[in-house]
């Protein structure tokens, strides 16, 4: 499997970005929703610090991913009805937008709350906005609802991938699976 993507399948770098970011953002999102289970204020402080560190890591990975995608290109689109191709493109564009917007909105939420932002206790990052108690609640809502919106799109994304795999028997899912290889049987065009 080559590092770069080719006509038939995604390269290992693209796959690495896809699956690492998927796992990190889902794990960290779930973790974020469970923050209130912390049984002491200090545990919550430490959990939040970890949540923020993972979120910043996701943001950095997404930026690298976009750069890579821009240099790397992608496999050719499978033959499909136009509406399917367009909905796939729109969902993909929104997914990219959200995986940037979710960590950024968290950073903004942290800024208006006036809390420090530290990456795994290694270094601190500046605030994106001034402390503003009135925006605190709103910013938290934005951060959380963007995640729910991501989940909604994910249902469509995963549903479409499974539909291609199970019903169309094509390579759409296989060419993105970590150790998957496209099969000639799956070649439709």
């Amino acid at each position: 499997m080559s590092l770069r993507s080719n006509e038939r399948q995604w390269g290992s770098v693209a796959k690495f970005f896809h699956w690492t970011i998927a796992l990190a953002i889902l794990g960290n999102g779930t973790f974020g929703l469970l923050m209130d289970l912390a049984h002491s204020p200090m545990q919550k402080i430490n959990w939040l610090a970890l949540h923020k560190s993972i979120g910043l890591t996701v943001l950095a990975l997404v930026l690298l991913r976009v750069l890579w995608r821009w240099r790397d290109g992608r496999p050719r689109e499978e033959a499909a009805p136009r509406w399917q191709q367009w909905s796939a493109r729109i969902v993909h564009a929104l997914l990219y937008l959200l995986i940037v917007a979710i960590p950024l909105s968290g950073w903004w939420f942290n800024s208006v709350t006036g809390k420090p932002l530290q990456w795994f206790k290694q270094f601190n990052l500046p605030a994106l906005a001034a402390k503003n108690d009135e925006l605190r609640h709103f910013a938290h809502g934005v951060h959380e609802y963007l995640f729910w919106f991501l989940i909604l799109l994910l249902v469509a994304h995963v549903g479409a991938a499974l539909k291609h795999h199970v019903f169309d028997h094509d390579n759409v899912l296989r060419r993105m699976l970590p150790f998957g290889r496209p099969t000639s049987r799956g070649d439709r065009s």
Partner: protein
Amino acid sequence: MKRLAILLALALPLAAAATDYTVQPASSTLGFSNTFQGESFDGKFGRWTAAISYDAANLASSKFDVEVDLASVKTGDGDRDSALPGSDFFDVAKFPKAHFVTTGFRQVGAKVIADGTLTLHGISKPVSLDVTFTPQAGGATLDVAGTVKRLDFGVGTGDYADTSVIGGDVKVTAHLQLAAK
């Protein structure tokens, strides 16, 4: 003998001649700084009193006696300001005040160091402060700076003892505007 007694009697008040000062609260501050998650923050105490007797030429008779109302702490963060007076930190319900009283002064080169005892959170330990005393017309300014190791005083123990999150060395500073009594 009689003459000596008179001389002594005259000299005694001179020997004890450190001037008493009153603090001008409006232009005086007592604060501290520490770090939280790698970011420094400043705190201030709104209510405190200080009895200051000082004479640079007569350190032996100088004395600082400071009492701080710990519930008056403000650090610019609501969560922190509600946590600090609580039982995990100052525990003002049990220990409402901190008290610092000097036990002596040392001249170290050009610097003066005030050694004293700080009683905080029910624990008394020695703490030393750098003293900068600047006489002015009708009074003086007094700046002190020192470090208080919060864990020595049991401030923020248990989960909060993690100094990689909440710094262990708290820098205490005060600026006092003094008027001669």
